[in-house]
């Protein structure tokens, strides 16, 4: 467990936490949108461009070799972090959305009319649209696992939806709007029993826990670096080797080829088959450094401390009259989505921003969830391990002030 002394030390690692917003010290509670960046990661980015910026996998010169080595070391770190069997099962992408699209596009050749894809009712738009497009291309249909008022997926309905027609099940490991941790072990086991593949979106889970893709036996797992203290524009697609070999390439270009003639091109092996063009080299390297930073802190420590923040904030917020929290699963990450009475979330977000607190307002790219609760959106506060209880106190006071002004 992280002590208060540790937290102060950790906060010193994040230069942005020293700045002010609207004349008030910044309180950053929009971590589910993107996390802040520790100095070691910033240093790695500066070092890359200062010392060894070069294109990778092709040059014979020293700089290119150094950059290639650093990039491949980063891939190894990503592999170890997710405990994948092979480093070439880790495709470095531009982010979670890109990674999902690689799989969704690739599945076009595997699906036919009558096949089914199952998604959950608590998906981010990026997790709905690619599957709708896939269904349009192939004639497959989309089934949805419904959720309860508490924001928990109904596993009994899920079991009924599964059949021999199910080819792919796609759920987020953790919901971005509600924070619910979904029962992925059960979902994977039942999907495999009917021969369906499972793709998990780990964008919201990975900042809080460390998934073991082998233990989970999951077919695909995707995540973004920028939610893990890394830079934007980098993510990862984990795929089991046999799946990645079957899946056709997503984009054509340099780095993904073996032989090219005008008659025929043969593709490179894994992971390069899916990494056409010059990748975000610096970003990939910085992603590796960010994972080192988080692993040094320890995910168990992070989770325990964030749980403490979540419980503390939940209790304090609930004391505000008329406040309703959306997403009250027993298993949830440090995310609180809420509204107060009929006050529009945008109004609360605007006032608390004036008081120096950054929260997200709106539908969180999850309109179906908002439709389910019949609300225009929510205010979402999401915590990270560098936040404190004192910040939560200030935030709760800010919400109270906003409510006073707005009602």
């Amino acid at each position: 467990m992280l002590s208060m002394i540790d937290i102060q030390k950790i906060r010193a690692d994040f230069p942005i936490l020293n700045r002010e917003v609207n004349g008030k010290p910044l309180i950053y509670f929009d971590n589910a949108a993107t996390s802040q960046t520790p100095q070691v990661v910033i240093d790695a980015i500066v070092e890359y461009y200062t010392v060894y910026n070069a294109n990778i996998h092709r040059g014979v010169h020293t700089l290119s070799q150094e950059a290639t080595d650093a990039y491949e070391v980063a891939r190894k770190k990503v592999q170890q972090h997710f405990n994948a069997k092979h480093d070439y099962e880790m495709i470095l992408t531009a982010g979670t959305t890109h990674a999902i699209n690689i799989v969704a596009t690739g599945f076009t050749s595997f699906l036919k009319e009558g096949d089914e894809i199952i998604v959950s009712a608590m998906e981010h738009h990026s997790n709905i649209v690619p599957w709708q497009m896939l269904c349009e291309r192939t004639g497959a249909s989309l089934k949805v696992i419904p959720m309860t008022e508490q924001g928990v997926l109904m596993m009994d309905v899920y079991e009924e939806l599964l059949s021999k027609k199910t080819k792919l099940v796609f759920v987020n490991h953790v919901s971005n709007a509600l924070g619910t941790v979904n029962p992925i072990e059960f979902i994977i086991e039942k999907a495999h029993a009917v021969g369906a593949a499972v793709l998990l979106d780990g964008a919201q889970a990975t900042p809080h826990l460390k998934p073991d893709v082998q233990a989970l036996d999951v077919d695909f797992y995707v995540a973004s670096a920028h939610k893990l203290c890394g830079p934007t524009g980098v993510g990862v697609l984990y795929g089991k080797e046999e799946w990645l070999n079957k899946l056709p390439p997503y984009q054509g270009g340099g780095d993904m080829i073996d032989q090219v003639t005008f008659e025929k091109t043969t593709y490179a092996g894994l992971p390069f088959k899916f990494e056409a063009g010059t990748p975000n080299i610096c970003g990939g390297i910085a992603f590796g450094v960010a994972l080192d930073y988080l692993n040094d802190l320890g995910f168990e420590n992070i989770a325990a401390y964030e749980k403490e923040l979540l419980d503390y904030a939940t209790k304090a917020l609930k004391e505000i009259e008329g406040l309703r929290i959306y997403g009250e699963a027993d298993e949830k990450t440090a995310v609180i989505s809420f509204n107060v009475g009929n006050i529009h979330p945008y109004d609360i977000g605007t006032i608390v921003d004036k008081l120096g607190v950054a929260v997200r307002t709106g539908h969180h790219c999850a309109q179906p969830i908002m439709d389910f609760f019949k609300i225009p959106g929510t205010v979402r506060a999401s915590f990270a391990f560098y936040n404190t209880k004192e910040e939560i106190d200030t935030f709760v006071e800010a919400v109270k002030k906003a409510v006073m002004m707005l009602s």
Partner: protein
Amino acid sequence: MSIKEIQDEIVSEFEMFDDWMQRYEYMIELGKDLPLIDEQYKTDDNIIKGCQSKVWVHADLEGEQLNFTADSDAIITKGIIAILIRAFSGQHPKDIMEADMNFIDEIGLKEHLSPTRANGLVSMIKQLKLYAVAYQTQLK
């Protein structure tokens, strides 16, 4: 009064407050006086895109004067649109088209003017001016 005179009047009202909280509270008050849009015009077509909250606007031409009514599901947004409508309603479309909007800056709402800001103040101004352009053509 001309648009410029109304804008100056609004600016002087806001100058009475020294902190942002009072200014916001006043803006919320102004929202309460907003000439409300008739329910029949509260359609998806009349929603201004680019706002996190919903804003509906309707325009009516009376003689050579353009009158606006509006509503929003968010209180602050309602205040913002009320300020704009107060400056524009009852004016000639041509004057609305040509109106300078610097007064927004002067009443301390400059941060709302950024085109990427999700409240859509810029979209609101654009929509009101579009109505003016449309009716100006009709007048000709």
